[in-house]
């Protein structure tokens, strides 16, 4: 099997996997980075969201061969100890219900706020529309993004 060098959370790692293996499963099964979640596998739910060179992407639909050489950040690498303003806002608002979707939500929100630190409510809704929360913690997600924006902006 081909060998790929990928840069995850600032560390370069080498993995031996088939070229069509989605980044999601490389992270979860090969690198033991279990914070990135599987929800649908077809880029519809956002549970698997990570940053690729600073952009929010769906790792379930990114073959490993397409990400070599780019900088990948997962929830584990977003901050040292949960201190990222988005994580802090999530804690302040007590967003999670079951919690399963939240890593993906946080990764989408943090990439979005990097580009747009002063969003309107409508912009937040559009940015977060791709992330499903089956427990429907949406009102708190919205509020947490607003609070995070004030911390960043």
């Amino acid at each position, binding site marked *: *099997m081909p060998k790929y060098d990928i840069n995850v959370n600032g560390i370069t790692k080498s993995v031996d996997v*088939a070229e069509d*293996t*989605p980044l999601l*499963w490389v992270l*979860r*099964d*090969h690198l*033991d*980075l*279990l*914070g*990135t*979640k*599987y*929800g*649908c*596998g*077809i880029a*519809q*739910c956002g*549970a698997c969201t990570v940053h690729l060179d600073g952009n929010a992407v769906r790792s379930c639909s990114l073959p490993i061969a397409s990400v070599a050489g780019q900088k990948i950040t*997962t*929830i*584990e690498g977003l*901050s040292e*100890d*949960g201190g990222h303003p988005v*994580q802090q806002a*999530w*804690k302040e608002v*007590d967003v*999670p*219900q*079951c*919690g*399963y*979707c*939240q*890593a993906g939500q*946080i990764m989408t929100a943090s990439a979005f706020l990097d580009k747009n630190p002063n969003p309107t409510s409508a912009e*937040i*809704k*559009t940015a*977060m*529309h*791709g*992330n*499903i*929360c*089956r*427990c*429907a*913690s*949406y*009102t*708190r*997600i*919205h509020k947490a993004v607003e609070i995070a924006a004030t911390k960043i902006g």
Partner: protein
Amino acid sequence: MSTSSITFNRRSFIRTSSLASGGLLIGFNLFTACKPKVQPPVDISQLNFNDFNAFIKIADNGAVTIFSPNPEIGQGVKTAMPMLIAEELDVAWKNVYVQQGILDTENYTRQLAGGSQSIRLGWEPLRQTGATARQMLVNAAAAKWGVDPSECTTSEGVITNAKGETLGYGDVVKEAAALEVPENVTLKKPKDFKVIGTDAPNVDIDKIITGKPLFGLDYKVEGMVYASVLRPPAFGKILDSYDDTKAKAMPGVLDVIRIGEKAKELSKEGVGNWTVTLGKSDKVVVIAKTTWEALKAKEAISATWVDDSTLESTEFQDKQLLGLLDGKEFKTLRKDGDINKAFSQADKILERTYESPFLPHNCMEPMNFFANITDEKIHLVGPVQTPEFAATAVAGMLGRDVKDVHLEMTRMGGGFGRRLYGDFVYEVAEIANAVKKPVKLVFSREDDMTAGTYRPAIKYRIKAAIRDGKVSAYHLKEAAIGGNMYGLIPNFFPAGAIENYQVDVANYQSNITTGAWRAPYTNFLAFAEQSFFDELAETMEVDRIQLRLDLLEKVKGTTDERIEYSPERMQNVIKVAVDKSGWGKKADGIYQGFAAYYCHNSHVAEVADVEIENGMPVVKKVTCVVDCGIVVNPLGAKNQIEGGVIDGVGHAMYGDLTFMEGQPQSQNYDKYRLIRMGEIPVVESHLIQNEIAPTGLGEPTLPPAGAAVANALKAATGNRFTQQPFSKFPELMQVPAKAIIG
């Protein structure tokens, strides 16, 4: 209202003084009567959690660990239940460490999450446990001081005597551990609560926001392999043969096996009805080194399936259910007076039929489970809402002693009723038993959506008679797939309010597996009933709120024990909702819809506000008033309320699973619409303050949401929605020209 009739005696509590790590361990066991000789072990890791419904450890340094007995599915019990213990133990919540319990099945206790009952049933025993531990610490301190325990008070883990001297819990733990368990401890009055009623964030919050492995899908052990199961593509088909040549040659694939024999054998022997949960068909299992390899290789198996029973379509099922409603074969669940006579004497009759589709649960974390089966032990780990049942069933299936089963529960990425069914636990047990390796069974989203135990399609027909300006008869008929409404549901409102009242049910046994789904039956019954009451008010030309209040008035003072809803509490939530939502006082262009419902022992009223945007009605806001007794954790409670309301709105608007030739027509989120951020209303929640024992909150806010929205849509469009999902009827969403201008 009292919550439990459990009698507590000393034998219900178990303590140990010889913990290897030091400290005091106290547990509460509801069923000690059946098994009085439980001895806690010296090594805490050997603790048999099944011996305890609740359990506290106080270390020598005073640190408090509370083991949360119930599986966490997102409804917040892992936070709220330990809060009950902490309250009576009188320790500061911030100093309490909460850990999820493990299950070792030997006795039966209520260790499951479902039916919004955890808090209701835990209310007394959990507080008793905390209070008992507190009393032991106080007794120990009092002995040290040589004073009477009644002179001592406690606060935040510190005991103070009449002279003002203090001792920390840690200072007396050793002595306390050697004392007898006290009898008849007194519980706090609600007005003295310090922990209950305060906002406590999710106990796992730090782990969740940093992506720590918490869920079943995250569980891993050395040498673990992954299993992916190929199940029949349609309900009614069974496996004939398969070719695994291609799959076996794929990278990472270790084996391909066939399972299903075990279940069939047992069913034949009359041991449980396994085929109901697992389907009649054998299945093909790919065992691989990684999840992706297992899922991918499954696609490469070519299998032939044969028809075993009818391949049903939605159209076919609709016909069956409507046929039942039109027919005469019903089981009567409640009958008051004589509806037929009342209908024959009616001035006016209103009759409506309401229809709902199948719904998958769609837990965000797909079904999965871990098993490792050796001659010594059956080790099971994962997200399941019924751990004891699963453990017992697996032992039965494998012909093993239930004592061999060691089941650990993980946090669950949603439950909604799906994880009450252990099909995935039985599957992984059969697989692990065959491959003799630690194995993790993983459902793809497609597996999860197509191998469901769905909320069944249901149709209701409601007919009411009006005479002299009063509702003189009410006849509710249910035609459902699988089973029918159960328990006290036939005695919910408007039972007791209408003299001639009857509930009749009939069911069609489909081969599609069905089961509980967040607020079973009431999740759609509330829509039918509360839509009907709005139409009834329109037909009678009376105020829709007043109609409900007047009917409730008649229930006051009822002696009918089957009626467990409280007309007073119901009237109260209705009035508060009217007030808080600005009912009837809204500006032009805001259309409101009302609904009130009682289920899971809680009373709820909701008002939906619809506005017109770009010519389309949009649900902008839902005001939700809940009376669920004492609120243990308002922060968590509001999360549940918001989630329940939005879930109710979302499924009423979009939720739809149809079948063609036995095959579910949606397999993933590209074809199954769940409500998303851009579609949510603002949810304004109000919790009624009282001192009544707490009741369920995970479910009761969902049922009325659909009706509140339908009633608001009627106000906005003039059209009445009687079928869910509403999005299936775009023509009814057309807003009359006048409303757009307005």
